[in-house]
């Protein structure tokens, strides 16, 4: 067990690699109740979020639709990354990180009051992520026929309130699946029913190897208050159009874009028998240095992969300093793995 943002969480229930493969090949369940769920209620909720988030909630017009976004500070640094669900014109739901809970609530709260938007943290809800090619059918089997039909109809990146549950077709693994927010009192029995149905228990360790194979950033590692989304592989989440939408961090991002970012976040593959770890030094021929922001052993690819922040002109290969040795690493596009399949060449 480890402390994770104030929550006591298991790194693994058994073998972390078996947990990882269970999600790539079958189904696994993660207890992600540490995630911070906040409901925004009020007629001006959309206006609030259009000013707070780097992505534009104006894109959300169908109830249940979800959007991934960064929330920035004035310098364009990332305060947090989150998913926002549009539920009604006066009702949005945010799911953000545990370690940033207090900071986020204070930041959003300070701006919500002026717009008469009420914040309600949903500590009454637990959250289970069921992920893998068999995750949806195994989850639906726990529901009544009518509810099962509704959840199986959900399109990717949509959520729906189904009885006491909020079920979303989202995740952090690169596989299909659901994230289910449900009353805490029900969580243990649902967990046990999933286990009985062959859904493998998965801990934080597998969550990390799966998200990294899927090329997804981890807040605090791959982007922080000191780095902008433009230097974190997240430019696709920044909506600079329409140009008259003013959001926190916009001016800083425009200035950065005008002068050109000095760094970029790339995927690395190490074909040597060693493991990339965060904070290892990256050496780029004639361009200078960078740093590994996340690294691990990829159980699917059977070699080490990582994300690194490197000079923007970095080409196809770099050297990484691993335990006193300089090892060659390939620079690749992420994701490394999607829906169980390797997306990089394995030499």
């Amino acid at each position, binding site marked *: 067990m480890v402390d994770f943002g104030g929550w006591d969480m298991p790194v693994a229930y058994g073998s*972390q*690699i078996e947990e990882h493969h269970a999600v790539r090949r079958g189904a696994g369940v993660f207890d992600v109740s540490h995630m911070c769920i906040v409901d925004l209620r009020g007629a001006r909720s959309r206006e609030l979020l259009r000013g707070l988030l780097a992505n534009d909630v104006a894109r959300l017009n169908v109830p249940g639709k979800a959007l991934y976004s960064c929330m920035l500070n004035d310098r364009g640094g990332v305060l947090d990354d989150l998913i926002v669900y549009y539920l009604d014109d006066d009702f949005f739901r945010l799911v953000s990180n545990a370690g940033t809970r207090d900071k986020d609530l204070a930041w959003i709260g300070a701006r919500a009051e002026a717009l008469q938007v009420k914040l309600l943290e949903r500590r009454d809800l637990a959250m289970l992520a069921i992920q893998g090619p068999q995750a949806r059918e195994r989850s639906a089997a726990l529901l009544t026929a009518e509810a099962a039909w509704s959840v199986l109809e959900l399109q990717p990146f949509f959520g729906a309130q189904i009885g006491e549950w909020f079920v979303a077709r989202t995740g952090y693994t690169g596989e299909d699946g659901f994230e289910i927010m449900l009353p805490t009192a029900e969580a243990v029995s649902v967990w046990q029913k999933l286990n009985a149905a062959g859904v493998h228990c998965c801990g934080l*360790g597998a969550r990390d*190897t799966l998200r990294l194979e899927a090329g997804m950033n981890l807040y605090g590692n791959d982007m922080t208050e000191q780095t902008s989304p433009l230097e974190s592989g997240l430019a696709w989440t920044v909506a600079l159009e329409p140009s008259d939408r003013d959001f926190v961090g916009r001016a800083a991002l425009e200035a950065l874009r005008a002068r050109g970012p000095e760094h970029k976040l790339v995927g690395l593959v190490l074909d040597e*028998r060693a*493991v990339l*770890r965060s904070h290892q030094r990256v050496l780029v021929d004639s361009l200078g240095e960078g740093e590994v922001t996340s690294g*691990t*052993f990829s159980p699917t690819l059977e070699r080490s992969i990582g994300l690194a922040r490197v000079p923007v002109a970095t080409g196809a290969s770099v050297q990484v300093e691993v335990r006193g040795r300089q090892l060659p690493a390939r620079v690749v596009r992420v994701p490394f793995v999607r829906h169980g399949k390797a997306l990089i060449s394995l030499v």
Partner: protein
Amino acid sequence: MSDIPSELKFARSHEWLKQLPDGLAEIGISDHAQHALGDLVFVELPEIGRALGAGESCAVVESVKAASDVYAPVAGTVVAVNDQLRHTPELINRDPYGGGWLLRLRPEVPGAEAGLMSASEYGVLAAQG
């Protein structure tokens, strides 16, 4: 936690030493250590013939979580390494006191293992985390 074999001797840094009938010493890492490291993915082993001082780093075991040095519990010369670990490092997780052995040494000083911990003493250390 499985039982700790009573015939083994232990170093504080979680290596075990087994006295073999031919005077050699077999070295591995404890069940407690493999459990703390989690799934092992790479093992670096020393060259045969290398002379090691007591406490000298002689191997690296790397798991999904972290890399960790393995130290020679006694001084000696490497006479064999467990080549199976190059392709199946998970043997250390599955059978830390058997098939997951790392290397065999010819001890420089016979009887040097007497300075190591007994299995029961090590059990107390491991229980403290």
